[in-house]
């Protein structure tokens, strides 16, 4: 019995390690055996158009524009016949635009306009191209692209919006008459929508923008400081007058007392300050005009410009008006 008991204990000791290794093999074995071959428990991921599009949309909505543009590109590449391809191409441009990559945005939108003709997103792409050029301060290029849209589109509303945008580009560059010319091209039915009456009234006030004549500022500077004084720079005027007056007197005294070398050095320095006084006065007049014109443009933008960029987040074309009472 003792022997029997001993044998039984021994077999129990062997059984548990053996059972452990068998169970380990059974659990790990299938995964080694399966390898790369798809099985019902490990299927290959199938990418559907809906899933891919939704993923790109989610990235776009979370403002991960660089990844979103890549995923929209993937969508366009793998599902070229899907009805959402045009929109995806538009979104590629928007991703670049909102990500601040304006040149890439222009390229993406142009690709869309080359592929689609006079559709909603092709028209929008022309607007966005001009917006991107405006961001890059390339106003002429922005005008050219809007002009192209006017030439090719058959949609009168699209033409009117292009005219409106062109008018505003001319306002941005302080070309008031050109701006008026383009606003006048807007058809009668849309004049109310674009608040043209109010805009025209605001534009009439451009003649009241304070202005300093740069030539007059330069001419007045023959008397050192007078040009600065004309531009409202009183401290600069005083310094220019004292500095130039002092140096002229010093040079005169030097020459008068036969110290020609000293007089020459002082004259050289004085020449710089005297010319600088003229240059500064002209420059100050230009800066004054730039500032006042900028303030005027900002004022009318805040008060009468219709916000055409409200459709940036693909909410459809929405017009929002803003003005102060």
């Amino acid at each position, binding site marked *: 019995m003792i022997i029997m008991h001993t044998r039984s204990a021994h077999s129990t000791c062997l059984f548990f390690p053996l059972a452990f290794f068998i169970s380990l093999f059974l659990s790990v074995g299938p995964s080694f055996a399966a390898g790369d071959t798809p099985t019902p428990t490990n299927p290959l991921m199938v990418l559907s158009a809906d899933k891919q599009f939704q993923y790109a949309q989610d990235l776009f909505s979370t403002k991960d524009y660089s990844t979103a543009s890549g995923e929209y590109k993937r969508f366009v590449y793998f599902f070229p016949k899907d009805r959402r391809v045009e929109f995806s191409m538009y979104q590629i441009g928007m991703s670049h635009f909102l990500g601040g990559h304006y040149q890439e945005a222009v390229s993406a939108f142009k690709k869309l306009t080359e592929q689609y003709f006079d559709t909603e997103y092709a028209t929008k792409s022309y607007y966005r191209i001009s917006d991107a050029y405006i961001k890059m301060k390339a106003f002429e290029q922005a005008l050219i692209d809007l002009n192209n849209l006017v030439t090719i589109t058959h949609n009168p509303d699209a033409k009117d919006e292009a005219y409106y945008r062109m008018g505003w580009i001319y306002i941005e560059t302080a070309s008031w008459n050109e701006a008026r010319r383009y606003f006048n091209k807007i058809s009668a039915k849309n004049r109310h929508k674009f608040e043209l009456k109010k805009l025209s009234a605001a534009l009439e006030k451009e003649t009241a923008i304070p202005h300093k004549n*740069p030539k007059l500022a*330069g001419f007045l500077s*023959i008397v050192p400081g007078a040009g*600065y004084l004309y531009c*409202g*720079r*009183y*401290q*600069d005027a005083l*310094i*220019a007058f004292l*500095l130039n007056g002092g140096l*002229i007197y010093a*040079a*005169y005294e030097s*020459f*008068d007392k036969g110290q020609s070398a000293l007089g020459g050095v002082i*004259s050289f320095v*004085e*020449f*710089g*300050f*005297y*010319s*600088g*006084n*003229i*240059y*500064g006065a*002209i*420059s100050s007049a*230009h*800066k004054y005009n*730039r*500032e006042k014109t900028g303030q005027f443009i900002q004022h009318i933008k805040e008060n009468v410009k219709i916000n055409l960029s409200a459709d940036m987040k693909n909410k459809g074309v929405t017009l929002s008006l803003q003005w102060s009472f």
Partner: protein
Amino acid sequence: MNKLFRFFLFLIVLAVLGANAFAGQGAKPDYVKSANDGNAKKGDTLIFPIKIYQKYISSADGDRCPSYPTCSQYCSEAIKKHGAFLGWIMCSDRLIRDGRDETRLSDPVWVNGKKRTYDPVSNNDFWW
């Protein structure tokens, strides 16, 4: 007094000629401007005294210019961009304006925790 008048007249003529010179440069086509850009090495030799000033005088004297870029840096950039003659005139203009009305009229900028007046060369040659 006659001498003073003649000297003053001489200065006016010189300055007007100078003004005409920079007005003419503004009207130059782009290819001429790009040719001038190739004179960067020439500009480097012209700004050598400014570099000496920055290295040995300004570093000992202390950083006190209320504008950004500093006057010496502004002069250096103006000379590099427009040559010695116009650079010298722009530099003199900057020295007249530095720290006075410009602080009231131009945008402020924070540099190393100090409030400065932002007045780059591009803010004074945009009109020509």
